[in-house]
């Protein structure tokens, strides 16, 4: 005998196309015009902040930085679908998620200047700090989701991972764990097509990244990751699913318009024509076109918004510049009690002048 043992399909969803035209049947009914304006502002804030960070890094004022340019819809759409009591677990490029969930901009700057104090995130904001080793945050997200269920807290966990990250064992281990224990986990695969220099097609032979969820026995969808409305709807629905014990994976198709990090030169491995093609699918331009067509946005509002955002970014940077590093803190925060060996090493450092 030979018969089908299993089959699965992965759906693709786009609600707002490149020109800002909307599929009314899929348009979420909780998305009033004002909310879309809010999305637009937040996506712009992410882009303006990103541009400022890149420029500061080039002036030697920030350490290495990982730009988000082009991925605003994936980050803001998903973050805006989360409730305050939901919990975000980003990797290292999700600056948009952090600011949309209320991370003070000065803290963003303190972190990327190279100070751990920027990673001490107010617990009320319900998110973990930047995690650099790719996909290693995924099991944490599964564990946090387990704890939320165990403690009967009404909270879903939304974890972020890149296309390259889906090749890591921790990605699969985490969704497998989530599937077995039916924990409230939503995974956003921020598929920006490039894992440094390796293109999506060379990362896996799988046709979609969403289908990797099938192996863990959990549901998944692929969405246009430059369509903030589709990302919002998919995340909102996935959070509902996760809260009922069905974890969910969302693959967002977006594009890394900039370099991997400020140490990277993408002209070494990809064609300008590809970047140009993705420019036409820009997530902010398309929402802007929609809002303008509906009479909700115009040039004057655009220019006011830009002025306001650049001002608040500069003010945040000025506050971040006031941050005074405390070298004692690298010794004082390793264990709950400082052991003799660290006490002596700290004492030794302070009693000499090599710290000056």
């Amino acid at each position: 005998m030979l018969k089908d043992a299993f089959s699965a399909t992965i759906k693709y969803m786009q609600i707002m196309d490149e020109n800002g035209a909307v599929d009314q049947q899929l348009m979420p009914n909780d998305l009033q015009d004002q909310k879309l304006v809010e999305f637009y502002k937040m996506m712009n804030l992410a882009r303006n902040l990103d541009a400022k960070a890149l420029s500061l890094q080039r002036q030697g004022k920030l350490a290495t930085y990982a730009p988000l340019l082009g991925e605003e819809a994936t980050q803001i759409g998903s973050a805006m679908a989360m409730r305050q009591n939901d919990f975000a677990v980003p990797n290292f490029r999700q600056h948009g998620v952090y600011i949309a969930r209320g991370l003070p901009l000065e803290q963003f700057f303190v972190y990327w200047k190279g100070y751990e104090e920027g990673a001490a995130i107010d617990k009320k904001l319900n998110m973990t700090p930047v995690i650099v080793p790719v996909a290693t945050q995924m099991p944490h997200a599964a564990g946090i989701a387990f704890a939320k269920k165990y403690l009967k807290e009404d909270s879903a966990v939304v974890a972020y991972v890149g296309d390259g990250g889906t090749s890591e064992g921790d990605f699969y281990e985490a969704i497998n764990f989530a599937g077995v224990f039916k924990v409230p986990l939503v995974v956003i695969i921020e598929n920006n097509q490039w894992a440094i220099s390796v293109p999506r097609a060379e990362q896996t032979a799988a046709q979609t990244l969403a289908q990797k969820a099938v192996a863990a026995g959990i549901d998944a969808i692929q969405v246009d990751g430059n369509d903030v409305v589709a990302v919002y709807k998919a995340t909102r629905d996935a959070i509902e699913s996760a809260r009922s014990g069905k974890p969910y994976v969302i693959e967002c198709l977006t594009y890394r318009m900039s370099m991997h990090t400020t140490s990277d030169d993408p002209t070494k491995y990809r064609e300008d024509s590809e970047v140009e093609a993705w420019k036409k699918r820009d997530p902010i331009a398309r929402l802007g076109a929609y809002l303008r067509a509906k009479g909700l946005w115009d040039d004057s509002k655009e220019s006011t918004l830009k002025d306001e955002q650049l001002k608040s970014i500069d003010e945040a940077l000025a506050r971040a510049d006031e941050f005074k590093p405390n070298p004692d803190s690298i010794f004082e925060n390793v264990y709950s009690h400082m052991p003799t060996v660290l006490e002596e090493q700290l004492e030794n450092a302070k009693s000499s002048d090599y710290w000056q």
Partner: protein
Amino acid sequence: MAMMNMVQAINNALDLAMAEDERVVLLGEDIGKDGGVFRVTDGLIDKYTGNRVIDTPLAESSIIGASIGMAIAGLKPIPEIQFAGFMYLGYAQIVNHAARYRSRTRSNVALPMVIRTPVSGGVKTLEHHSESPEAEYSHIGGLVVVEPSTPYDAKGLLASAIHGNDPVLFLEPTKLYRLFKQEVPEEMFEVPIGKARTVREGDDITIITYGTMVNVVEKALEKKPGISAEVLDLRTINPLDEDAIVDAAKKTGKVIIVHEAPMSFGVGAEVSAIISEKAIYEIDAPIMRVTSPSLPYPMPGYENYYIPNEKKVLEAIERLLEM
């Protein structure tokens, strides 16, 4: 008081910790219905229902990684890795996250979690079931590393680890699980982390040891009642009890460090360096190490050629006393 072997003492500590704090959860491979491959968690799944004793998928990275997430979200997870030799699949999670989350967040996020795993050899098991990796984990910084040598200490140290607010690697020597029983209080008690134990006092020679070798050293000295030896059981590998090490070394001026782990870059080297830095003028002979050779743990057929035995310890003692 009750007579307990180390398995019973650890089971008892876990039982009491779960009874007093609902945030304590156990997770690992085969720890539930099966009670763990050494039966350390036997019976707990029946006593504590509601996902408090979790049989996980066979995936060490997510056992450690999910435990980190649980600790972030307010639980006190106690993951078990079935053998220390399998822990490397979760090593990245330990090094990159468990050991540095507090430091990364300037103590905004602490990780109260205890990773339990069996270590060391002498029980004729397969490859990767007998390693003594304590030095590797102590070198990282940020991870407390504890290794008891008696049932009493196993219970008391585990209680301290669970009650504390640090990630702790709790190493359980399989050879000692059922080697002997001891009077252990049935109620909760703590043995402080970071404090060594004076096993016996003496004036001729100081032996600094821990884990499986405490018993070997004691047996060796029983054969030579004429030798007056000061024996120190470190109990905590990281952070080391430097004061106790230095005091014990100064007391006799002759020091042997005995451990089952390979010699090179090991705990013996660290202890020796501490003594050199803090007591060199009160030491009157070379500091010696009695350890396994600097090579990967062999298959069980060869382990008796590898692990230090009483004879090897006695030879070193006699050599040092002649100096």
